[in-house]
C-alpha cells in the first residue's frame, strides 16, 4: 500500500488547511449574506449586514457602503455622499469626494496601504478620522456601477493583501444585486405611497370642491371620473356619467377635440362656455365651463370644471333690469325735460315776438294816424272843391272843365281807397297790440270774444275766401286771465282749424257760460282726427303736419296754458266730418285772484 497521501509535507498541509479555511470562510460569508437576502428586503438592514460582515472578515476598523442615487446623476459625488452608512459619515468630506471621484472615473478596486504616502490622497488626511489604509470596490448591478463598498484601516500593519481585495470583491458582487433589489424595492415603496397619497388627496379635493369636476380621456372624451357636484350640475347620477362623452353630457359647451387638446399646454385652463344654462328638476342654473389638460397617473386627461354662477347671473340679471329701469326713467325724464325746454323756448319766443309786435304797433301809430287823418281831410277838401265848382259864381269855363272833373274824381277815388287801406291797417295794428298785450305777468280781466276777434283778424290770410267763419257768441262775463296767452291758444286752435280744412269749409266759433266756467269752442269742417291719434295730440312733439309746417308743440303749449289757468281743452272729432276743440276757463282761476290784485297794486 502506498503511503503517497501521507507523504505530503506539513507545510503543504498547513497551506491546504488555510485554503480550505478561507474557502469555508468565503462560503460562510456568502452563506450569511445569502441568508440575508431571504431574511430582509429592507435596504438599511441589508447594508448594515454587508458592512458588519465586511468589517469582520477583512479585520478592519471601519466599513461603509455608498450608493449612487438614481435619477440624480448630474452631481454624483454629493448624492453618493448622502448614502453613507455605518459611521462612514465620519469620513471627511474631501476624502469621500476624492474617493468617489476616483472610483467613478476608474470603475475598478482601489487599494491604498499608506494614505499619507499616496500622491492621490495625501493632502486630505484628517485628525478626526485618521485613515491609514483603505480598500474600495465598486458595487455593480446589470453592469452599471451603483455604489461602493469600502473598508478602512486594516488591523494587520502590513495592510491589505490581494487576498483581501478578492474577498471584498466577492462580498461586493454577492451584495450588489441584493442592495440594488432592496433599493429598487424601497424606491417602489416610496413611489407607490406617494402615488397613493396624491390620489387620495386628489379624490378628497374633487369631492370637497364647490365646483363640478369631470375627468375625461383626451382621445375620445369619455368620462372617467366625476364628483358629486358634477352629478348635481348635469342632473345625472355618477353611474350614468361614467363612460359617456363630454359632448353628450354638456351639449352646449364646445370641447376641444383630441387635436385641440394637443395645442393646450399642461395646466393651462381654457374657458369653454360662460353662463351656460342647465335645467335640472325645473330649476335653471348657470355654469361657467372650463377645461384644463392635466397629467394624472402619467396619463394626459381633460379636466372639465363647471362653476355654478347662477347667483352671479341672477345678480347680473337683477342689475340689468335695474339698469334698464333707470335708463327708461332717465329717458323719460330727459324727454320731459326736453319737452318743457322746447315749450319754454317757444313761450320765450312768443313773448319776445309779443314785445316786438307791440313795439311795431306803437311805432306804426304815428304814420298811420297821419295818413288816416290826411285821407279823411283830403276827402273833405274835395267836398269843398265840388261845392265850389257847383257854385254859380264860379266861371263856367272852370265849372265845365272835363279834365278838372276827371282829376277831382280820381283824387276822390284815391282818397277813398287810402281811407279803406288805412282802416285795414288800423284794424290789424289794433289786433296785433290786442294779441300781444304787454301785460304778460299779470292776470287781467278780459273778454274772450275780443281776443277771438283779434286773432281772427291776424289769420285772415289763412281764411281768404275758402273758409266761412260763423260766430255764435253767447254773452259771457270777462275772465281773469293772461290775455296774450289765451290769444296764443286761440291762434293755435284757429290755425289748426284752417289747416284741417283742405279745400273749402266752415269754422264755427261759439262762446258760452256753463256754471262758473266759460267755454270757447272752435269747430272746423275739416278732416277730423283718427281715434288712434286723439290721445296723443297734446303730447309735445306730436305732429302729422309735414316738416316745416308744424313743430308739434302748439297743442302741448295750449294744453299747458289752459292748465295754468285752471282750465282744460276738450276735443271731439269725427274722421271726415271735422273736429271741435273747446277751451274751458274758470271765470276766476284758482290762484288768479292773488296774482291779479298783486298786479294791480303795483
Amino acid at each position: 500500500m502506498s503511503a503517497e497521501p501521507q507523504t505530503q509535507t506539513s507545510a503543504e498541509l498547513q497551506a491546504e488547511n488555510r485554503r480550505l479555511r478561507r474557502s469555508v470562510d468565503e462560503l460562510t460569508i456568502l452563506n450569511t449574506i445569502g441568508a440575508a437576502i431571504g431574511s430582509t428586503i429592507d435596504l438599511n438592514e441589508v447594508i448594515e449586514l454587508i458592512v458588519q460582515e465586511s468589517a469582520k472578515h477583512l479585520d478592519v476598523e471601519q466599513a461603509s457602503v455608498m450608493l449612487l442615487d438614481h435619477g440624480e446623476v448630474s452631481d454624483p459625488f454629493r448624492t453618493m455622499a448622502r448614502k453613507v452608512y455605518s459611521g462612514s459619515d465620519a469620513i471627511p468630506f474631501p476624502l469621500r469626494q476624492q474617493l468617489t471621484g476616483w472610483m467613478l472615473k476608474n470603475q475598478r478596486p482601489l487599494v491604498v496601504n499608506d494614505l499619507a504616502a499616496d500622491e492621490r490622497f495625501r493632502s486630505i488626511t484628517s485628525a478626526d478620522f485618521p485613515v491609514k489604509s483603505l480598500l474600495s470596490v465598486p458595487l455593480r448591478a446589470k453592469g452599471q456601477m451603483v455604489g461602493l463598498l469600502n473598508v478602512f484601516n486594516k488591523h494587520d500593519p502590513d495592510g491589505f493583501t490581494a487576498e483581501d481585495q478578492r474577498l471584498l470583491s466577492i462580498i461586493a458582487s454577492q451584495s450588489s444585486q441584493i442592495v440594488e433589489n432592496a433599493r429598487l424595492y424601497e424606491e417602489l415603496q416610496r413611489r407607490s405611497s406617494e402615488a397613493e397619497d396624491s390620489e387620495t388627496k386628489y379624490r378628497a379635493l374633487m369631492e370637497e370642491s364647490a365646483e363640478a369636476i369631470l375627468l375625461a380621456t383626451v382621445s375620445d372624451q369619455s368620462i372617467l371620473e366625476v364628483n358629486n357636484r358634477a352629478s348635481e350640475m348635469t342632473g345625472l347620477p355618477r353611474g350614468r356619467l361614467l363612460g359617456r362623452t363630454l359632448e353628450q353630457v354638456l351639449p352646449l359647451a364646445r370641447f376641444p377635440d383630441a387635436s385641440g387638446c394637443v395645442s393646450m399646454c399642461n395646466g393651462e385652463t381654457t374657458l369653454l362656455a360662460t353662463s351656460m344654462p342647465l335645467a335640472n328638476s325645473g330649476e335653471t342654473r348657470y355654469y361657467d365651463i372650463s377645461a384644463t389638460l392635466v397629467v394624472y397617473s402619467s396619463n394626459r386627461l381633460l379636466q372639465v370644471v363647471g362653476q355654478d354662477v347662477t347667483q352671479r347671473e341672477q345678480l347680473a340679471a337683477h342689475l340689468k333690469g335695474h339698469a334698464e329701469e333707470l335708463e327708461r326713467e332717465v329717458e323719460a325724464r330727459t324727454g320731459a325735460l326736453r319737452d318743457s325746454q322746447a315749450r319754454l323756448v317757444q313761450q320765450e319766443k312768443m313773448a319776445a315776438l309779443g314785445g316786438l309786435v307791440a313795439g311795431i304797433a306803437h311805432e306804426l301809430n304815428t304814420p298811420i294816424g297821419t295818413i288816416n287823418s290826411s285821407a279823411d281831410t283830403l276827402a273833405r277838401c274835395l267836398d269843398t272843391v265840388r261845392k265850389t265848382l257847383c257854385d254859380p259864381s264860379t266861371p263856367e269855363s272852370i265849372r265845365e272843365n272835363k279834365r278838372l272833373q276827371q282829376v277831382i274824381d280820381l283824387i276822390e277815388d284815391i282818397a277813398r281807397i287810402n281811407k279803406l287801406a288805412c282802416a285795414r291797417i288800423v284794424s290789424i295794428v289794433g289786433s296785433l297790440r290786442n294779441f300781444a298785450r304787454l301785460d304778460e305777468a299779470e292776470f287781467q280781466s278780459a273778454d274772450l270774444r275780443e281776443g277771438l276777434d283779434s286773432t281772427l283778424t291776424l289769420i285772415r290770410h289763412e281764411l281768404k275766401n275758402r273758409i266761412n267763419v260763423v260766430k255764435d257768441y253767447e254773452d259771457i262775463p270777462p275772465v281773469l286771465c293772461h290775455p296774450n296767452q289765451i290769444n296764443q291758444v286761440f291762434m293755435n286752435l284757429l290755425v289748426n282749424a284752417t289747416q284741417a280744412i283742405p279745400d273749402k269749409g266752415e269754422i264755427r266759433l261759439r262762446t258760452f257760460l256753463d256754471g262758473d266756467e266759460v267755454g270757447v269752442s272752435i269747430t272746423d269742417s275739416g278732416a277730423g282726427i283718427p281715434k288712434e291719434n286723439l290721445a296723443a295730440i297734446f303730447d309735445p312733439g306730436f305732429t302729422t303736419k309735414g316738416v316745416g309746417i308744424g313743430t308739434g308743440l302748439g297743442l302741448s303749449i295750449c294744453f299747458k296754458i289752459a292748465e295754468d289757468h285752471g282750465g282744460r281743452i276738450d276735443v271731439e272729432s269725427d274722421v271726415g266730418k271735422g273736429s271741435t276743440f273747446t277751451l274751458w276757463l274758470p271765470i276766476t282761476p284758482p290762484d288768479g285772484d292773488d296774482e291779479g290784485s298783486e298786479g294791480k297794486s303795483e
Partner: protein
Amino acid sequence: MRESGETTVIAIVDDEEMVLTSLRSFLLLETDYEVETFTSPEDAIITLKDKPLDLVISDYLMPGMTGIEFLLEMKKIHPFATRILLTGYADKENAIKAINEVGLYQYVEKPWNNDDLKLTIENGLERRFLMEKLENKIQEVENKIQEVQNVQQNLQEIQAQIIKAFM
C-alpha cells in the same frame, strides 16, 4: 265861441311834423279855430305864455320833456285851457296816471279818428267856456256881494252918523 267874440285858439304840440300837419289841415278845413303848432314843447311854452289859449293837444313822448310835464306847465299859464293828451297805445298807462295830476280832460289814442277828435275838441272847448263863464259869474256874484257889503257899510256909517246927530 267865446263870449267876447274873439277867435278860439288851439295849440298842438308833437315832435312829428306829419302829425301836426294832418291835424292842422283837418282843423283848418272843418273849424274856424286859430291853430298853433309846435314841434318843441319848450318853444310852445315860450310862445304861448303871452297869448290867449283855449285848448292844448300834446303828444306824450317827446324829446326834452314829456307831454305830462308840458301840460303841467300849461296848467300854470292857462288854467282854464282844456288839456288833451294824444298818445300811442304803449303810453296809455302813463296817460291814465296823469289824469288827476295834470287835470287832463281827455286822452286820444293814435291812430285817431278825425270826427271823434273834432267832437272831443268841441266838448273840451265847451267845457272850457262854461268853466270861464262860471268863473265870470262867480266873480260877478262876488263883486255884487262886495258891492252890497260896501253899500251896507256905507249905510251903517250913515246910520251911525244919523244916530250920532240925533243924540
